[in-house]
C-alpha cells in the first residue's frame, strides 16, 4: 500500500481542523509498519482514512493506492460495492478496544459465519473449518471458543478472536489499532508474538498503531512518528531508535522509563504545540525563528531515513545507544 500526501480535515464550528497533514508512507509486503504518536496525533484518523471509514464531513485529500498482485487500486475513488470487496478481502482493521468490538448477543461462531457470508462464502462447513484453523493459529481452543459469547472470554482471548476474524478472508494488510493497550504484561507479550507469527505465516503486511514506544521497539520494521497530525520522522526501526533525526522523537525516547536506565534531561513541563510550522517548535531545544514557519514535509536526510525537522542535518551521526547500568560490557 502506498499513501501519498494524505491530509484529513474536519469541518467544525470553529472552521476546518486539520487532523492529518501531508502524510506519506509505503507499507511493503510482509512488513510491520509502526505508526506512533500521542493522543491527538492523528494516528487513528490516518488508519480510518486509508480504509475509508471516516464520516462524510471529513475532507480527505491525497492518494491511497493499494497494489493487488500488481494491479493498482485507487482506494479513495472506490464506490460502495468496490469498498465492500476491498475491506476484509484486502484490508482488515482491528479497532482500538477490540475487547468491546464483539457483538454480545452473537457467539464467536456466528461472527465468523456473518463475516464470511457477507463476502460471498456460502459453504458453512468450509467456514467452520477455516474458523477452526485460524483460532488454532492464534492459540485458542476452537471447541471452547466457537460457542462462547464475548463475556465468557478474557481480554486477551477477545483480542485474539478479533485477530483471527480479521484474517478470515486472508487480507494482504491488517491494521491493528492499539492492540495491546489495557492488556496485562503477559497477555501483551502473547499478542505481540502473535502479530509477528501472523506476518511470517500468512505473508501479511501489518500497520501497527500505538502510543507505546516499547511495543514499536519490539515489533515494528519501519516507523512513522506523528505529532499533532504532522509527520515528524520516518525510518527503519534502528534508525529511529539509535539515530533519531527529529528532536521530538529524541524526547519521546528519552522520556520513556526503562528498567536500569537513568532518565536523560527533559523539559519540566511541555508547552502546547505550535499552531504554525513545526508543532514541536515551542518545546524544541534546536528551535529557531524559521521553525515556526517551516513547511513540515518528510525529506530524505540520510539514505531512506526521512525527517521533517529543518535542523535534521545537525543530528546526523549522533548515534545514541541506550546505556543500561549493570549490563555486562
Amino acid at each position, binding site marked *: 500500500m502506498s499513501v501519498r500526501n494524505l491530509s484529513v480535515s474536519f469541518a467544525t464550528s470553529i472552521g476546518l481542523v486539520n487532523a492529518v497533514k501531508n502524510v506519506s508512507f509505503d507499507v511493503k509486503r510482509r512488513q510491520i509498519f509502526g505508526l506512533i504518536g*500521542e*493522543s491527538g496525533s492523528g494516528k487513528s484518523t490516518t488508519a480510518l482514512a486509508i480504509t475509508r471509514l471516516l464520516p462524510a464531513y471529513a475532507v480527505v485529500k491525497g492518494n491511497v493506492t493499494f497494489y493487488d498482485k500488481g494491479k493498482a487500486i485507487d482506494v479513495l475513488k472506490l464506490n460502495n460495492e468496490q469498498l465492500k470487496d476491498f475491506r476484509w478481502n484486502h484490508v482488515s482493521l482491528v479497532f482500538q478496544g477490540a475487547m468491546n468490538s464483539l457483538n454480545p448477543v452473537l457467539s464467536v461462531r456466528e461472527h465468523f459465519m456473518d463475516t464470511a457470508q457477507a463476502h460471498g462464502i456460502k459453504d458453512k462447513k468450509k467456514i467452520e473449518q477455516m474458523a477452526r484453523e485460524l483460532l488454532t493459529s492464534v492459540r485458542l481452543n476452537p471447541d471452547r471458543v466457537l460457542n462462547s459469547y464475548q463475556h465468557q472470554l*478474557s*481480554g*486477551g*482471548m477477545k483480542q485474539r478472536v478479533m485477530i483471527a476474524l480479521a484474517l478470515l478472508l486472508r487480507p494482504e494488510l491488517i491494521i491493528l489499532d492499539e492492540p495491546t493497550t489495557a492488556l*496485562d*504484561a*503477559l*497477555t*501483551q*507479550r*502473547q499478542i*505481540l*508474538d502473535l502479530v509477528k507469527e501472523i506476518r511470517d505465516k500468512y505473508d501479511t503486511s501489518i500497520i501497527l498503531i500505538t*502510543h*507505546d*514506544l*516499547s*511495543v514499536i*521497539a*519490539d*515489533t515494528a520494521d519501519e516507523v512513522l512518528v506523528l505529532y499533532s497530525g504532522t509527520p515528524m520522522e520516518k525510518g527503519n*526501526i*534502528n534508525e529511529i*531508535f539509535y539515530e533519531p533525526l527529529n528532536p521530538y522523537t529524541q*524526547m*519521546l*525516547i528519552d*522520556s*520513556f*522509563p*526503562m*528498567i*536500569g536506565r537513568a*532518565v536523560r534531561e*527533559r*523539559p*519540566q*513541563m*511541555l508547552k502546547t504545540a505550535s499552531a504554525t510550522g513545526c508543532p514541536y517548535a515551542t518545546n524544541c531545544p534546536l528551535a529557531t525563528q524559521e521553525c515556526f514557519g517551516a513547511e513540515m514535509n518528510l525529506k530524505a536526510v540520510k539514505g531512506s531515513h526521512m525527517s521533517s525537522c529543518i535542523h535534521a542535518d545537525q543530528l546526523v551521526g549522533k548515534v545514541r545507544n*541506550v546505556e*543500561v547500568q*549493570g549490563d555486562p560490557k
Partner: protein
Amino acid sequence: MSEEELIRERGTIAAEHLTVTFEAKRGLFGHIPFNAVDDISMLIERGSTVALVGESGSGKTTLGKTLIGLIKPTSGHIYFHGKDVWRMTKDEFMDFRMKSQIIHQDPYSSLNPYKSVYDVLALPLRAHHLAGSKEEEREAVYKMLEEVGLIPAEFYAEKYPFELSGGQRQRVSIARAMLLQPEFVIADEPITMLDASLRLGILDTMMTLQRKMDLSMLFITHDLGMAYYIAGKTGKIAVMYLGSVVEFGSAERVLKDPMHPYTKALLSAIPEPDPKRSRSKQLMKLTRMDPPDPSRAPPGCKFSDRCPFAFDRCRKERPKLSQVGDEQVACFLYPNVEGTPVESAAK
C-alpha cells in the same frame, strides 16, 4: 515496648495481616468469598517510597484504599504512627484521614466539573478548618498551585476542569492531595492516562513535593519501567499477585535480579523501548499464560498453577513472605521460606 510496637512506631503506616474479603458472584444466586487483599503485612517508613506493582485484578487499588481507611479491612490492622486506625476516636480518625491522601488514576472523573479549580482546592481546607481567614485560604491555594507548576496561579484558579488538559487536571489532583499537608500519599496510577511526554513532568513534580514535605508514598502502577523510575535508588518495590505480596525489596534488586518466578516472568515479557534489547529477550514460559480469575486462586501457592517450577509443596502449603538475603519473597524455591498448610477440606 515490644518489637512489634517498635516497628509500628517506625512507620508512618504499618499494615499487619491485612485481609479484605469480597464476594464473587457465581450463577444467579451463588456467592463465593475471595480475598482481594490476602494477609498482607507492610511497613512504609517515613519519607520513603514504595512502588506497588501488579496486574489488573491483583488487588493493588484495594490495598491502597484500605491503607488510607477508605475500605474497612475484614481482618488485620493498620497502624498510623503506632495507633490502630480502626480503634481511633472520631477526632483521631479525622486527623488520620487528613494526613493520608490519595491521587486517583483518572484526572477526567476525579474532579467535580461544576467547581472551579479554586473551589476544588479550598473545600478540603474548609472541611478540615485549616484556614483561619479567606486571605489565608487564598494564599495556601495559590502557593500550592505554583508548587505543582500551574503558573500563574490566579489564572488557573478561575478555570473549570473542562478547560484544562489531562496533565493540568492531574496537577490539580496532586495539589488537592498535598494541600492538607499529608504525611502519607497514595498515588493510584496517576500517569497512566496521560501522554508519554507529560508523564515524567508530573512524576517529577510529585517527587519534588515528596522530598520537600518528607512524605511517605505508595505508588501504584502496572508498569515496571515506571516503578523503577519512581522507586529510584532508595525506594522499595512490592510485587502483588492475586491479593498477596510475593516479593518485596529494593527497586534495584527486585527489577534487576528478581527472585519470585512471577516477577521473573513479568520482566521477561515486557517489551522495552530499545529494539535490540527487546528482541533479544527470552520469554519465561509459564504453564498457562492467560491471566487467572482472582476468585479461583489455587490452594497452596497462588501461582502454582502457572509456575513452571512448581513442585508438590507448592500445592500443599501457602508460602509466607519471608526474609531471604536483603529482600523478602514468598516462594518455596528459596530456603527458610515458611508456609502454612492448606486445609484441603476448607478450600
